[in-house]
């Protein structure tokens, strides 16, 4: 099996970076959870907690979940994204008007 670069097409580089961050965050999720459990503690000695602080700072920066941005899946728009559909408001409106969103109807009351 020939190994090489796997190239796919994301909408733009920012989306690619977001994808990388999500992958790393998934990998390091357990470790971060455990180290934070040691840090946010009233029982363990403070020296241990300081050591834990340093350890978590040593982890790669992209592994923290705070850096993930919920972008639009189709246009990579960082703002105006509805969580349920992972789409930006413009794309959502486009699909809804063409009746391609299941169960979505224009509001009228």
């Amino acid at each position, binding site marked *: *099996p*020939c190994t090489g670069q796997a190239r796919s097409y994301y909408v733009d580089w920012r989306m690619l970076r977001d994808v990388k961050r999500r992958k790393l965050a998934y990998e390091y999720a*357990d*470790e971060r959870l*455990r180290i934070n*459990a*040691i840090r946010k*503690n009233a*029982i*363990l*000695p403070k*020296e*241990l907690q300081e*050591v834990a602080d340093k350890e978590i700072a040593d982890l790669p920066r992209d592994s923290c979940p705070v850096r993930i941005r919920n972008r639009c899946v189709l246009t990579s728009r960082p703002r105006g994204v509805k969580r349920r559909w992972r789409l930006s408001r413009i794309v959502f409106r486009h699909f809804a008007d063409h009746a391609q969103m299941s169960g979505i109807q224009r509001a009228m009351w």
Partner: protein
Amino acid sequence: MKVEVSYRKKLQELKTREIKKQGLDSEGSMLQKTTEDTQRGRPLNPELVEAASAVASSLTLNKKQTESELLAQLRRHEETTDKQKKGGTINLRNVISEMAVKRQSPAQRGVRISSRISLELDENGQRIKPGRLSPHFFDSRRSLKVGRRLNIFSKASTETENALETVSSPTIWDLEFAKEIAAITAQPPRNGFEEMIQWTKEGILWEFPIDNETGMEDDAEFHEHIFLEKHLEDFPKQGPIRHFMELVICGLSKNPYLSVKQKIEHIEWFQKYFEEKKELLQEI
């Protein structure tokens, strides 16, 4: 109706045959056979029975006899079709040889009758055509394995397979060949149905009704989730670490989303971590 129009010729033929039948003494044997047939398991299609009674009534001579004989033939025919479907040998010849009088093959007559009458519907809504093999079987009265062997062909020599040749690793050409074959055999789906079949094979399509626990098989029982103290044996029994680990265990036991393995992994990680930090702890 189509049935009535095409019936007339066949009815006339049947009439002449019935007359010949009545002249002979074989009626008794036939009637006996019918009584035997009625005792056999499978009841006939009620529509066939009705059609047989209609035919018998249209023939003015001896309605009951003709009806019973027709029904007997139908039953026999259905038996033969069942046997053919199951792949068993046709014993009609034996049946006929037992009968006293030689007749034009009753299977053929049965075919003609039931081919007009068959209103049975298949799964697709098409009529079941009676098995056509029975008349043809009578034409060829030879079987395949009777007679002397001609010895023209020699038996296929069983190829002695050598010991499996060890292949170190599949070469690139083999891989390419395999890929080519896979690409050719995997035809694009002709249907929406075939597409869905492909997706279910890949695991993309969910099974309906949706089961929330697909892929999650937790074979562990509740006590393995809750009573996690047995994993705490390696920890010191007093001190802040023990206190901390007991809190960890309390939290894990209340967590329904993790499997037992994951919980054990958490505890083991803490174990390793505290062992590494032993020197630090002893300073304190």
